[in-house]
C-alpha cells in the first residue's frame, strides 16, 4: 500500500518537473486593444515553436499591469503607459515593470457621414466635450444640437482622449457613453448630430473622420508624429524579460511581428 503511494507521488512529481522543463508556457493578460495583436502574434509564434504554450486573456490595461506586479502573468498588455500609482505599487513589491512599445494607435474624432464639418482644433474638441460648444453652427456646421458620445470612463481609449484632448478636465455628464468602438460607430451612423471618437481601425462607411488641427488621422501622420491624438501600445514585463518571454517580445518587434500588427488593425512601428 505504502509502496504504491510512493510510486504515485513520484509519478506526479516527475510530471510536474517534465512539464516545466520540456515546454515553455507564457501567460499574457491585459488591454483589449492590444488583444488582437497578441492573438495573431501568439498564433504565429506557437506555429513556429510547437512546444510553447501561450495563454491569452483580456481584462483591460489596468489588469494587465497588475498581473505583472502580482506575478500572475509574464506579459501585461496596456494601451497606455504605466501610471505613477502603479509604479509605486510595483515598487513596494520590488517589481520593476519594463515597457516595450510594440505598436501605435491613433484615435480619430468622427461625425455622421452627412455632417459638413471637416476640421476641428483640439481646443474646439475639448470645448465640445466640456459642453461649452453646444451647437454645430458655433463651429461652422449646419445648425443643430451636438450629441456628444464618449467611451466609458474606464476604457483605455477614453483615458487617452482625456489626457490628450481634455487635458484631464471632465467630460460633461450629459455625454452618451458607449461600451465599445463598434458601439460608437453604430451610434454616430444613426445620429445625424453626433460626434464620437474611435481607433483608426474602426473607420467605416456611415461615419466621417474629422481632421484634427488640419491633420488627417492616418497611419502615415501617426508615424511621423503630426497627428496629435495618437498613443503607443505596450507590453510590460516583470523585470528585463528572459527566455521565452524575451523571444516572444523580439518576435513581435521583428518584421514578421510588425506585419501581424498591421493585420490586426493597428499601426506598425516600422
Amino acid at each position: 500500500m505504502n509502496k504504491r503511494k510512493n510510486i504515485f507521488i513520484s509519478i506526479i512529481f516527475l510530471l510536474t518537473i517534465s512539464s516545466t522543463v520540456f515546454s515553455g508556457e507564457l501567460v499574457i493578460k491585459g488591454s483589449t486593444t492590444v488583444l488582437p495583436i497578441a492573438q495573431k502574434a501568439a498564433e504565429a509564434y506557437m506555429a513556429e515553436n510547437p512546444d510553447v504554450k501561450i495563454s491569452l486573456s483580456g481584462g483591460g490595461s489596468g489588469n494587465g499591469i497588475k498581473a505583472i506586479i502580482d506575478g500572475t502573468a509574464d506579459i501585461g498588455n496596456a494601451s497606455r503607459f504605466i501610471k505613477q500609482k502603479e509604479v509605486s505599487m510595483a515598487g513596494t513589491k520590488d517589481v520593476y515593470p519594463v515597457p516595450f512599445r510594440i505598436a501605435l494607435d491613433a484615435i480619430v474624432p468622427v461625425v455622421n457621414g452627412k455632417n459638413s464639418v471637416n476640421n476641428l482644433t483640439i481646443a474646439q474638441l475639448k470645448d465640445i466635450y466640456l459642453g461649452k460648444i453646444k451647437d454645430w453652427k458655433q463651429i461652422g456646421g449646419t445648425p443643430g444640437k451636438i450629441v456628444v458620445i464618449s467611451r466609458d470612463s474606464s476604457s483605455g481609449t477614453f483615458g487617452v482622449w482625456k489626457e490628450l484632448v481634455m487635458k484631464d478636465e471632465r467630460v460633461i455628464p450629459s455625454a452618451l457613453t458607449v461600451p465599445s468602438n463598434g458601439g460608437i460607430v453604430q451610434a454616430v451612423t444613426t445620429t445625424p448630430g453626433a460626434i464620437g471618437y474611435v481607433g483608426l481601425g474602426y473607420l467605416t462607411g456611415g461615419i466621417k473622420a474629422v481632421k484634427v488641427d488640419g491633420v488627417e488621422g492616418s497611419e502615415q501622420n501617426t508615424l511621423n508624429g503630426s497627428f496629435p491624438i495618437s498613443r503607443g501600445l505596450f507590453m510590460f514585463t516583470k523585470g528585463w524579460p528572459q527566455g521565452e518571454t524575451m523571444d516572444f517580445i523580439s518576435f513581435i518587434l521583428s518584421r514578421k511581428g510588425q506585419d501581424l500588427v498591421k493585420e490586426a488593425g493597428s499601426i506598425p512601428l516600422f
Partner: protein
Amino acid sequence: MKRQHIDKGVRSGFLLIALFSITALSLIMIFLFIEGLPIFDHVSIKEFIFGKYWYPTDDPADFGILALILGSVSVTFLSGIMAIPLGIMTAIYLAEIAPPTVAEIVKPIVELMASMPSVVIGFFGMVVVAPFIQKLFNIPVGLNMFNASLMLAFMAVPTICSISEDAVFSVPTALKEASFALGATHFETIVKIIIPASLSGICTAVILGLSRAVGETMVVLMAAGGAAMIPGSIFDPVRPLPASIAAEMAEAPFRSEHYHALFAIGIVLFLFTLIFNLIADFLSHKFRQVGEASL
C-alpha cells in the same frame, strides 16, 4: 424498516439541495456586502447616495450615484406606465373575454415573448428603435430614457400578463355567476368583482414585472444612452445602475475604490429589488381573497 430508511434518505436529500441553494445565495449576498462596504471609508453614505457626479476614474474621483439612481427609477417608472395597463388588460382579455381558441393561440405567444433574450431586445432598441424615434420625435438622439423604457416594457408585459392572467382565471366561478344573477353586465362584473377579487395576484404580477425591469442590464446598457446625468425630459439619455456595473466592472482595478463603489451600487440595486419583493409579499397577503364570502 427499509422503506423508512428510503423515506429518511429522500427527506435529507431534499433538505441538502434546499440548503445548498440558500447557502450559495447567502454567500453571494455576504460577498456583495464585503466588497461593497469598504467604499464608505472613502465617501460617506450620504455623499454616495446624493452625490450628483459620477467620475469614478478621475483623480480625485467622485462617487455620487444620485444620477444613476434617478436613471433607474425613471426608466422603471416610465416602463411601468407603459407595461402595467397593457399587461393587465391583456390578462383580463385572455382570461375573461377572449374566445377559447384565441386565448389558446395568444397565451403561448405572450409567454414566448418572456423568453426573448434581453440582448436581442437591447440590440433591437439600439439599431431599429433608436433611429426611428429620433426621426419621429425630431430629437437629437434616439438612445434615451424613452427608448429604454419601451424596451423594458416589452420585457415586463409578458411577466405581468401571464401572472395576472393566472390570478384572474382563478377567481371562483360562483362569484361571477352571483354577479350575473344580480343583473350586472359582463363589464360591471369585471370591474367590480373580478378585478377586486384578483387584486393580490395582479399586484404581485406588477411588482415582479417591475423588479425585472429595474434589474435588467443588457437593455439599458445598449439603449439608454449611458449619460450619468439627472434626466430633465423623457428624451434625455440616462445611465441606470445595472448599466454602470456592467460597463465598468471589467476595467475597474481589483479592490480599488472604483471596484468597491461598483459593488456598493450592487448593494443599492439589491435593496431596490428586496423592497420590491417585500411590497409584493405584503400586497399578496393583504388583498388575499379567502374563500368566496369575503368580498
